[in-house]
């Protein structure tokens, strides 16, 4: 019978055809694989080198492959962080004509850290808390656009450094559904499942001795519940205040901005005699700072990185005494005169250890650190040199954490 491999993709890359689709994914030769860390999964998932990029390939039933692909495409049209779908391949057969499972292909999220590798790296003790916070924001953002995840877990989330915190990305949309709006039942079920899964995953880390036995993992799971409700309520609750205190509208909006959300629509009502005003956000949108930075500089970075960069832009504006200039012009000069030269000053081969915005963030931290030490203002060029020699050289490569040799790739299963 004729071999009829089918690729469904928005922009099919002919290089895909060169991969050994007639071999079960589990048996793919190590030459084509990229040994990057993965979370736990039921399906066979492999990272594969394709030209100068890396793709993630998952063997999965055909119907599910197409529905996950479609859902990821819909998500990629929103600004909620999720992995980018590349395509679905069906009609695979092996050399003997036996049918092989369909695959879903996504672009490997560079600089992403599965939670297991974060824990095996011995980071700060409150890592778990910061991961939970990141996941909370992701869940709230997904729920705001009507996405019911159906299988929230640390394994189904990827983490990227975001200044001193983390940003969470959705990686597994297999059980997801996009609705115009979610019911409370759907949200609560998602949160409850997230709690159970997270606690289970952390218990597993304890069993594997990656996480301290003393750590109260149930409390960490409960924390997700609390944080989620705090954030959701802040974004939806009605605020009531005296009609004289209208300045509180602005304060409330600033507060929501500080949580990283923009208010696109606000409902304001008064009681009958007009002495009390009630406001309630109607349409909220995450990514306040990253949108603002994008607008000013074209840099596409995560929320807290953006916050940090915007702060630096503000200090630059003050230092150059340009408070009266249009912020757009100042931003342009800051980008060309501060941000870009700083990144360029880092030797090229070390740049791939961290995202540019994360590098910049760490360099700012380092500047503060050595300035404290030496009790003087240190020029940026000197800061970068010191940072590169004392910090960056000793860090693992996070664009592609090559903690494992390709032939050891199977060890993580």
């Amino acid at each position, binding site marked *: 019978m004729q071999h009829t491999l089918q690729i469904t993709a928005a922009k099919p890359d002919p290089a895909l055809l060169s991969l050994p689709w007639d071999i079960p994914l589990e048996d793919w030769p190590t030459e084509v694989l990229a040994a990057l860390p993965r979370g736990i999964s039921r399906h066979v998932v492999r990272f594969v080198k394709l030209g100068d990029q890396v793709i993630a390939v998952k063997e999965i039933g055909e119907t599910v492959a197409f529905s996950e692909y479609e859902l990821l495409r819909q998500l990629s049209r929103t600004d909620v962080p999720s992995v980018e779908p590349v395509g679905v391949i069906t009609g695979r057969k092996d050399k003997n004509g036996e049918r092989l499972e369909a695959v879903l292909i996504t672009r490997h999220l560079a600089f992403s850290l599965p939670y297991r590798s974060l824990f095996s790296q011995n980071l700060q003790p409150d890592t778990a808390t910061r991961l939970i916070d990141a996941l909370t924001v992701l869940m709230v953002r997904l729920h705001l656009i009507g996405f019911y995840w159906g299988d929230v*877990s640390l394994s189904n989330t990827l983490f990227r450094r975001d200044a001193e915190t983390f940003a969470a990305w959705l990686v597994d949309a297999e059980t997801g559904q996009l609705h115009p709006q979610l019911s409370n039942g759907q949200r609560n079920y998602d949160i409850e499942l997230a709690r159970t899964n997270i606690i289970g995953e952390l218990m597993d880390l304890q069993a594997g001795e990656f996480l301290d036995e003393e750590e109260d993992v149930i409390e960490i*799971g409960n924390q997700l519940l609390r944080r989620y409700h705090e954030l959701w309520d802040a974004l939806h609750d009605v605020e009531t205040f005296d009609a004289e205190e209208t300045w509180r509208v602005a304060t409330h909006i600033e507060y929501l901005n500080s949580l990283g959300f923009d208010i696109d629509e606000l409902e304001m009502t008064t009681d009958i005699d007009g002495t009390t005003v009630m406001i309630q956000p109607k349409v909220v949108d995450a990514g306040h700072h990253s949108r603002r930075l994008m607008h000013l500089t074209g840099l596409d970075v995560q929320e807290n990185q953006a916050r940090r960069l915007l702060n630096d832009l503000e200090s630059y504006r003050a230092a150059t005494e340009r408070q009266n200039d249009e912020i757009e012009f100042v931003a342009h000069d800051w980008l060309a005169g501060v941000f870009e030269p700083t990144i360029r000053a880092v030797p090229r081969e070390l740049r791939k250890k961290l995202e540019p915005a994360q590098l910049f963030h760490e360099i700012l931290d380092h500047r503060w650190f050595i300035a404290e030490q030496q009790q003087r203002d240190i020029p940026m060029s000197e800061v970068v040199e010191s940072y590169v020699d004392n910090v960056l050289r000793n860090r693992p490569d996070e664009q592609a954490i090559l903690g494992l040799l390709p032939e050891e790739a199977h060890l993580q299963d």
Partner: protein
Amino acid sequence: MATVTYDHASRIYPGTERPAVDQLNLHIEDGEFLVLVGPSGCGKSTSLRMLAGLEDVNQGRIMIGDRDVTDVQPKDRDIAMVFQNYALYPHMTVADNMGFALKIAGTPKEEIRKRVEEAAKILDLSQYLDRKPKALSGGQRQRVAMGRAIVRQPQVFLMDEPLSNLDAKLRVQTRTQIASLQRRLGVTTVYVTHDQTEALTMGDRIAVLKDGLLQQVGTPREMYDTPNNVFVAGFIGSPAMNLGTYKIDNGVAQIGETRLPITRDAVAGLTDADNGQITIGFRPESLDIVSAAEPAALAVQVNIVEELGSDAYVYGTLKTGEGEQDVIVRVNPRSAPDKGEFINVAIKPGHEHVFSPSTGARLATI
């Protein structure tokens, strides 16, 4: 353990006019395995999600046992969505993989061990309890996942197309396993599938939905032998029932040259709206090969013969007078006809199903 009752339960999605589930009335007995089946978009998942608490109920109510759960949050309903997530934890033993949710709930250690051991016995996993999941086969891993739901001892198991992810062979195996396991556990189960074969082989009873409306509920045998309407008749059974609408005159239906007498009761059920016509259905296996001389003989031209080992099916064309109708006939594979040939078939006496063309409803039978 408990019964489940949908009492005039409706779900209208915001921004839509027609209910996705319309006034559903369904009573599920304690320990029963009920399958919700129907074509894509018929509302089966919505019905299940209403029971799970994932979808608001806009009208009517849902009861689990004597308790009205219409407004109860999912986690407080004492139900388990099986197979929703069954990633196994590599560093934990099989026993811990099964019992960790109980540990979270603060269940005492001995109680957890007891429930896990009981579940493992039923699932045939006893000797693996202290091993790591790595040592398990695919099927065993899936049973561990099932074990997670079992140890929680919920009142109701809910499953939404749990086999859709498996290849055809494993699907058939797993479906028998789930069905027999459910019978041993005796936990009330609601199972959603679009596959009528799956429904027929697994369910104690089957509920067929279409366009949000319950069409019929009954045992697999009832659904197969006495479908309530044309839709159920065509949906249940594979290959599907042959269905056609013909002229009826003085109690005799006219199929091409052939005249088929219809019972008085059935004819009495027809109305003016039926316009002197009647819908007749006959299953592929309800046809006998007869000689052309037989008065009830229907001449079928053979298009394709599908050989399935023990059976063979003829896919052919029947001239009906008004036009042509595709029909399927089960034949003995040893004497299967050739393509292009004509065969003569007659409906086995009493094996026809008759329906009103205007309403689709079954007419009183023979």
